[in-house]
């Protein structure tokens, strides 16, 4: 279900993502570039300075070959799914150990597992997914992976925050449930469903954001 949801949303997201949803990313690059730097990926244009033709070309993203970009997209999606699987497996360790010790599930243990899994997924996806866009680099141009990562975070931070809230909701529900059977289940249910939705949205937007950030930052090789 997870994979289907991610693929379905990505098919829409990658096709409809605007070319530069992250206005802050190029500006970060501009700020870092020295005034006399050569005109390349991070070519600068100081405020008030009239652009030359060369500078104008350097500030225009250089489109990646479609085949390479498609490869990078495919690997990015696979990497996202792989990190999600890893995170889910890691998340299941804590409740499984509690189960085997007690012979029954412990709601708080499952909350801990959920927190661990969600945190792992945020970290792993942001670490891995932008990196795979190096695959789209070639002799004709290269993108800035840091920009891709910043863009991915910019896109995915709200679902990550929503996930944090939903995981917290689950934790509160689990604590209540442990005190009085049944009383915490509504919160746990809302928490787990919200976390799942946030998780899927985060994964999709991480790929979409990384892709957009890469494409925006890609410049022709000098």
């Amino acid at each position, binding site marked *: *279900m*997870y994979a289907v949801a991610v693929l379905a949303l990505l098919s829409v997201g990658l096709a409809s993502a605007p070319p530069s949803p992250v206005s802050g990313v190029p500006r970060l690059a501009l700020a870092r570039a020295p005034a006399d730097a050569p005109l390349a990926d991070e070519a600068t244009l100081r405020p008030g300075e009239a652009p030359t033709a060369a500078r104008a070309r350097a500030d225009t993203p250089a489109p990646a070959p479609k085949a390479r970009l498609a490869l990078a997209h495919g690997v990015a999606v696979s990497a996202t799914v792989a990190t999600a*699987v890893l995170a*889910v*497996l890691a*998340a*299941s360790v804590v*409740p*499984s150990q509690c*189960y*085997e*010790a*007690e*012979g*029954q*599930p412990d*709601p708080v*243990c*499952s909350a801990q*597992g959920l927190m661990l899994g969600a945190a792992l997924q945020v970290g792993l996806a942001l670490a891995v997914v932008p990196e795979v866009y190096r695959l789209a680099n070639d002799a004709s141009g290269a993108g800035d992976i840091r920009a891709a990562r910043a863009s991915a975070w910019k896109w995915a931070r709200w679902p990550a925050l929503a996930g944090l809230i939903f995981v917290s909701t689950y934790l509160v529900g*689990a604590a209540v*449930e*442990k005190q*009085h*059977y*049944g009383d*915490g*289940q*509504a919160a*746990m*249910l809302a928490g*787990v469903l919200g976390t*799942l939705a946030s998780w899927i949205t985060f994964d999709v937007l991480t790929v979409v954001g990384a892709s957009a950030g890469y494409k925006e930052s890609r410049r022709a090789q000098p």
Partner: protein
Amino acid sequence: MKRRHHSRRARAAVSRRAFIAGLSALGAGAVGCTSGPYRPSSPFPIGVAAGDATPTSVVLSTRYVGQAPTLRVAVSTTDTPVRSTDVRLPVTPGDGGFAQVTLDGMTPGSWYRYVFEAVDATGAVVETSTEGRFRTALPPDALVPVTFGAVCCTKYTHDFSALTSAGARRDLDAFILLGDICYADGAKSREDFREHWGFTLDTPQYRALRAATSVVPLWDDHEIRNNWERATLDPVLFDTALAAFREHQPVRSDPASPGRLWRKLSWGRTVDLFVMDSRSERDREHGHYVSPEQLAWLIDGVTTSKAVFKLLLNTVPIGAFDTPFFGPFGDDMWLAYPDQRREVLSAIDKAGTRGVVWISGDFHLACIGRVSHPGQPGDRQLEALIGPGAQASNSLPSYPGAPQWDWASGINNWTELRLDPATRSITFRYHDKNDHVFHEATYTP
């Protein structure tokens, strides 16, 4: 209702189980599978079984797939191995080699042994089944302790080792098979059903268990398919499944109502077993979890019973599992039939009947507690869920707990029920696959 409660938190060697439904598929990798069609392992592939013992009668059954033309059963009237001098009765196998015979005129409360023998044309015994044992039910006025075993939910693709210790016990007066014993989901023809039953019963654990004592078989949904109800089930499929159930399990048939599965079995004045049929008579449109006839029989039987204990063998729980997590399963429970549920619980409450214990299964978890929330009908009635015997444990992230439920576990198990009329106490002992009693609790219902 008094109770003595002793829980042993076992660090049991259970297979990996995931904690939420989404994880269970990834985490529960212990599910095995059968390969190829079912092939009988021996001339008597499902061993032998005795069932529905009364003080003077029992039903014996087997399946013979050998070549000998004649079958007979030899019965030892003492609890000693069958000898050549013991009484022998001819048995006529039906289609598929299934044979059942009802023995009458026996001594109440006595242990017997028996074997089925395949006899050739010269009268020589060419094949002999494993030896079975059973105890006839106690005489009507007996007031002595009784010990039963019980299990449900044994899917043949899973590990049956939790049943091993039950088959080794020699002191169980009878063993309750509380439905979902065979997972025949998807079966359509008689041969399909026989194949599923063969995979289930043609196993060392079930051969030993069914030979060790008599059984009290019930059926539930998976003997046909998940959550079926009679009103919407193909009648041909129902008849086929029922015939397969009857040929594999020694169930007493009432000549007046041959299709009826609900029945009462008494073990002296110690306990009355109300063997319900929670599937065959469901009619959601009319709010019938069971037929009005079965409901009236149950209420009348329980409220007028002279036995110290009344065990209501129920397959699907009657407890108020009304929390959000159980919402998706609510349609299959008594809770979805509130009028009948209220009627039976209120009638028992109103009559002030003591010693009522609902014995249920189906949920892939074991738990003990009160049927209803405080102040509602049934709030003093006890319900114990047994099993699963060989199934994935319930994957909900929170199991029934206080204040309504005293304890719960998902460990594969069989349950021992010891009924002591002198103290009016019932003790539940849950055995895991290592025969470790991982929970024991005594109640005085």
